[in-house]
């Protein structure tokens, strides 16, 4: 088995009663990779996360996490060094946010109070606040749930609609958390309905449709600065869906929505046509 693989699904089928959620799912996620899963409501996105966490059983097939086969249940093993935020989190209402995280952290005992405080600050929550969780808003609970998932710096993080209930600031804080996790070589699987999030965070995207899982083309917004304003027409000929970046003061910055796989080919074409450009952001 490839030691760079964080999680691998092999011919996994999931049925509940007589309903097939999905069948013969095969995919691998590498260490340090961030992968998105999209699909319609009820297609089985959350079920994939639950299977990966060992909270649910595959009807047939095998799941490996960091090389170890997941055997859910009493005499089995759950995914090690894995954290999850599946559905809207509910904590113990009579404790503060800090106390909830503190007692959870004591199970593995990897981190100390300072680490919890740092993580809470990163999600925009005050670790010194005595406010009980029962008084938290949805957004605050979501932030606490994210803190719970990221605080121990696990190698695999499973997130279900992680930005649900978050305001603009919360989404930015989440983005910073994901960047930190990537630097720590953590693998992340996240389920989202938000295409922008998928494009922004994910290296690859999978889609569940008609009980099957397949890899989707990943689209990025390539931001390029061109030297000559005449080349705007040439780029529009190559990629009609391109547009000017109105957020920039520079009138020669364009945004080119393009699939990750074909971005290099596009740049090669620009080179062939002697169009001088500078990549600002992928």
């Amino acid at each position, binding site marked *: 088995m490839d030691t760079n693989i964080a999680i691998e699904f092999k011919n996994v089928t999931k049925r509940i009663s007589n309903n097939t959620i999905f069948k013969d799912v095969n995919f691998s996620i590498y260490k340090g990779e961030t992968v998105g899963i999209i699909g319609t409501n009820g297609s089985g996105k959350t079920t994939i996360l639950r299977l990966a966490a060992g909270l649910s059983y595959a009807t047939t097939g095998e799941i490996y996490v960091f090389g170890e086969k997941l055997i859910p249940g*009493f005499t089995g093993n759950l995914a090690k060094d894995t954290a999850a935020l599946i559905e809207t989190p509910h904590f*113990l209402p009579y404790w503060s946010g800090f106390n909830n995280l503190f007692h959870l952290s004591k*199970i593995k005992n990897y981190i100390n109070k300072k680490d919890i405080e740092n993580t809470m600050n990163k999600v925009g929550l005050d670790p010194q606040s005595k406010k009980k969780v029962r008084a938290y808003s949805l957004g605050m609970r979501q932030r606490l749930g994210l803190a719970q998932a990221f605080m121990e710096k696990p190698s695999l993080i499973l997130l279900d609609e992680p930005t649900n209930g978050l305001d603009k600031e919360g989404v930015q804080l989440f983005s910073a958390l994901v960047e930190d996790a990537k630097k720590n070589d953590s693998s992340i699987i996240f389920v989202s309905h938000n295409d922008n999030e998928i494009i922004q965070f994910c290296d690859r995207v999978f889609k569940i449709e008609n009980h099957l899982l397949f890899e989707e083309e990943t689209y990025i917004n390539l931001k390029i600065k061109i030297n000559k304003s005449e080349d705007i027409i040439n780029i529009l000929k190559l990629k009609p869906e391109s547009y000017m970046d109105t957020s920039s003061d520079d009138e020669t910055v364009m945004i080119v929505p393009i699939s990750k796989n074909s971005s290099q080919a596009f740049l090669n074409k620009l080179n062939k046509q002697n169009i001088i450009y500078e990549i600002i952001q992928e």
Partner: protein
Amino acid sequence: MISRMIKMDLHSLITKKSVWIAIILFFVISLLNYEFLKSEEPIGNPYYIPSPAFHYFVSAQGGGSGFLFVFLPLLVAIATGDLFIRERNSSYLMFSIMRTDIITYIRSKIISIGICSALIMALSQILLLSYTLIVFPVNLPDPSGTVPYFAENIYLNSPLLYCLILILNSSAMAFFMGTLSILLSVILDNLYAAILAPYILFIGLSETLMSAPLIYDSNLSYALYSLSPLVMSGDYITIEYSWWVVLIYWIILTIIIALLTILVFNKKYKREKLI
């Protein structure tokens, strides 16, 4: 894992109002029982000698004029009955299980809640005993007076040790009730049902066993009566048991319920009805 879980559950107990309500209720019921016992004293008799503290403490536990034993299981249910179901009905159960494994989690939880329940009971009983020793005269019991049948020798010769044995027995009962509350919290979804169901089951089963002699007059019926949970909570002091019988009774019942809890927990987890 077990020690960390105990610390967590103890922290929960300190922050929950229901624990303090249970302890206050315990004292209210105990003091009411003491007043009732006092009212039975022949104060008008010129040769009347006030009963010693040990008499009050032991009599309140059960048998004849004592009624504390009827409420002890309810007080445990109020104090610790919601510890597991709140975790189960939140994401906390999932977060905890993902940091350990299923068997370690449920085993630690049973021991932790059992110990917390026993500690609450022991603390309450020790405070009551301390109060009783301060307020009432501390004399050796009179062998010619009212003497419990349970471990009679120990009561007459070492009444303080006797009281500690009673506290140990009620703590063991509390451990059992804590375990029973986990079992019913695994089966039931509703918070209030999970808190009250252990007490209702406790009383229901006891009443059923205690009515056996009314239905059929035999040695077996009287044995069933003597072994009912309510009798073993306090009324056993009217029965000639050795000092270890009640303790062993609660230990055996607790082990049975603990194993059942683990089985039911596993079954519900497998059927994905738990998280």
